[in-house]
């Protein structure tokens, strides 16, 4: 062995040619692989970053951050849903139906979509419905009475023999359309907390120009017949709580809605929290989140009549962490929002998986519930807390947001020709 040259003690002088070449070779080979496999794909394949549909974008960016969920009182499983409307942002529809008529001062009547009118008239001007009130500008009570009398007369004319047939006169609710103070409002509207109204044909937006980019999409998410959300506080012995009451106090601000005792979380926050729970509870060690391009996957996740579409890259673009999974000792979850949309089913299942699914090896997640240690709660299962709602909301995003609810997501999306394979017993026709 030759001693290194005494005059060259530096790092590079001691690295002989073979070592330098080793390092250079490693770095060159490695960086080529990095460029091709890690950096290039998202520029080559647009589905890695482009959304799957306008509905997906609007659900995540418009609907979720402005939809709030809370349980009415501590220890009560009833959920409260509140939309946060913003002027020139949220799209609203005021639509009459068989049991509902709307009165409005003359300048607002154009925003009402009459019963049987074919085109839905949407607006982003902030307006709400309420029980008719009388003010200096417009006497809604009188207008409502007139409208009710007219409607009932019409009904009597349409059913001349209503007395003989012992028909009951219909109850017609009449609401007043009005413009509230301020730039935003907190409202209730019909919802189950997971699915939003979507319209992509026979509608027009009555704004003079498009107020938001999403208003220009070929379909929009809208709020149906919103009414102001008000609460009444209640005190029963040492139980403090509140409940929805349209004669109660209005919500002052977003801060008020989110802080104690109301304690609302936006659905966006809950989905993010659900993703975090999915990570820390290790759900992804047993469940996959991908419908593979294999017959067994698309059929297992499909409906009675159609295979599910295999997962595509753009389904995941709104997730901070994605859990495609490497193993299934629990079923795949990529279409769980379609297959198991019931909050009650998930409540029972998280409380006791072995009871809900015979033979399941899934652990019970009782920390998603506020248990009553003395066992005196009226609920057979515990009362779900925000962790349950978070994981539930997260799961409900799976498979439900690929295409708008008006377009059947399986149609024309069977790239592996599932039906042909099954019916041809393995022979895929051209």
């Amino acid at each position, binding site marked *: *062995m*030759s001693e*290194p040259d005494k005059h060259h003690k530096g790092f590079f002088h*001691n690295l002989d040619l073979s*070592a330098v070449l*080793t390092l250079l*070779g490693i770095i060159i*080979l*490695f960086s080529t692989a990095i460029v*091709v*496999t*890690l950096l290039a*794909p998202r520029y*080559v*394949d647009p*589905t*890695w*970053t482009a959304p799957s549909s306008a509905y997906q974008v609007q659900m995540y960016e418009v609907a979720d951050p402005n939809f709030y969920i809370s349980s009415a009182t501590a220890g009560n499983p009833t959920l409260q849903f509140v939309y946060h409307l913003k002027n020139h942002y949220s799209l609203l529809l005021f639509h009459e139906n068989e049991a509902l008529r709307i009165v409005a001062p003359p300048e607002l009547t154009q925003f009402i979509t009459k019963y049987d009118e074919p085109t839905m008239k949407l607006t982003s001007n902030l307006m709400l419905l309420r029980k008719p009130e009388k003010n200096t500008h417009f006497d809604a009570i009188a207008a409502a009475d007139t409208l009710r009398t007219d409607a009932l007369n019409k009904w009597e004319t349409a059913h001349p023999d209503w007395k003989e047939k012992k028909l009951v006169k219909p109850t017609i609710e009449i609401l007043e359309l009005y413009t509230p103070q301020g730039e935003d409002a907190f409202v209730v509207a019909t919802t189950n907390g997971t699915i939003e109204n979507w319209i992509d044909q026979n509608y027009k937006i009555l704004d003079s120009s498009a107020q938001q980019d999403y208003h220009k999409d070929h379909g929009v998410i809208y709020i149906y017949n919103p009414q102001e959300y008000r609460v009444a506080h209640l005190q029963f012995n040492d139980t403090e709580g509140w409940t929805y009451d349209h004669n109660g106090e209005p919500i002052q601000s977003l801060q008020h809605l989110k802080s104690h005792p109301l304690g609302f979380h936006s659905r966006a926050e809950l989905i993010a929290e659900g*993703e975090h729970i999915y990570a*820390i*509870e*290790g759900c*992804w*060690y047993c469940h*996959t989140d*991908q419908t*593979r*391009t294999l017959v*067994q996957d698309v059929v*297992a996740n499909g*409906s*009675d009549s159609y*295979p599910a579409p295999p*997962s*595509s890259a*753009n389904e*995941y*673009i709104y*997730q*901070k*962490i*994605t859990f*495609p999974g*490497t*193993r*299934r000792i*629990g*079923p795949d979850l990529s279409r769980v929002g379609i297959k198991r949309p019931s909050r009650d089913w998930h409540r029972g299942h998280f409380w006791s998986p*072995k009871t809900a*699914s015979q*033979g*399941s*090896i899934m*652990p*019970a*997640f*009782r920390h998603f519930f506020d248990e009553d240690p003395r066992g005196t709660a009226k609920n057979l299962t515990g009362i779900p807390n925000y962790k349950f709602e978070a994981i539930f909301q997260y799961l409900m995003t799976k498979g439900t947001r690929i295409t708008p609810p008006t377009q059947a997501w399986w149609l024309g999306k069977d790239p592996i020709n599932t039906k042909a394979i*099954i*019916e041809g*017993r393995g022979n895929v026709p051209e």
Partner: protein
Amino acid sequence: MENVKVVYEDRPVKLMLYPSILFMVFGMFVGVYMAFNTFLFPDYFSGEYVHFGRVRPVHVGSVTLLWLLSADVGLLYYFVPRLCGTPLWSPKLAYVAVTLWWSSFALGVLSYPWGTNFGWEYAELPTWLGMIPIKFITTIAWALTALNIMMTIATRKYEKMYVSLWYVMGTLVWTTFTYITGSYGVNWVPEGISRVNVSFFYIHNLVGLIFTPMGLASAYYFLPKLANTPIYSHRLSMIGFWAIAFVYAWIGAHHIMHGPMSQWLQTTAVVFSIWLFIPVWTVVYNLFATLKGHWAEYIQSAPIRFLMMGNIFYLITCIQGPLMALRNINEITSKTDWVIGHSHISLYGAFTFFAIAGIYQAIPVITKKPLWSNRLADWHFNLNLIGSVPFILALWLGGFWQGVLWATWANGTSYAEFHNNLTLLSFLDTIAQMHYFWVFRAIGGVIILFANILFAINIFNTIVLKPVPTEDKQLEKVKVTL
């Protein structure tokens, strides 16, 4: 070669190896706990902090990071100076690195049950644990370790570099890059499948570019040492090295075959996965050819048995790996227990066996005492081998059966009939059929755990109980001929 008397500083080796052995036993205990509490008696111990999802990363983190990676780093501290003919560049730096290493990795891994899981596989370490930046400290600890070893190589006395040093230099570059990519880089790319791609790149290269080169570096160093014979072919080992450098970084996408990943990327991963046969066969042949004519040593020495069995397991795992990337085989094996079997045979069967062989060779040298009990070492090997058979076979056969069940899940001539049949044989039925395989897996796990408790006892007694021999016997025979 032994004309220069060098005093090697072995305290960093001890500081890495001793705790790692304890963590191996701990990690295997957690594994056995799960084999019972998740699979045989599901959710018997129930609750937020003890259920499968929270405990599994503790098992994986303990055996990969706290045991295998730490032990491998300890062995680097041991054999790199000896191959360079120079003491470790800076023992003080090593103490700093070791302190940061254990405090950050152990805290991070043990915190998972309290909900600190980062959410990416093998990269579960939390970014923050309260006020402690766990992930940052682990990175610093690795960087200091890498710097120390790199400088040791740079200041070496022996001009020519043995193949182990090539692998070590490779792993110093790759680990740094791979670890940073998997722990931080995953957040630097767009959300969704880009991150999945980075994650799978990390997952595969943690095994392929960290554990493989570290393990092979150890094997190439320790087999000639233990058997007292030169390596069969230095050139063949070089071919293996460059094939690994060429191939591994390309194949991350084979973890998501048939999944929502671009088809061309999947195909690229398949092609490069098949290339993996080259480095594997060079290693396996080289190690076997080295022992040719010295098989008596195999009978006499438990560490050599560990090394050669590890070599056989390495061969098996590396035949499986490329084949599992093929689309049709992947359809059956993917997402089943087969995958768990595959990961165990590589990290437990191959690289843990290599590391154990290395520890058996290193312990007498660094403690300057002979091993406490060679018989116990024999039992350690025998029980490990006996335990690994029901353990790994159960996972393979069970996993394969599960995959076949899914692939032939239902039958029918129309979609509706097919779907109906599939609904009748529910997913849970395919899980129920795994039960007896899981029984054998648990039995194997218990045997393996017991075997490695014996190992820990043996090493402990060597370190503590036996008095230092007065005579400085020549325990270290340098026989690495270049």
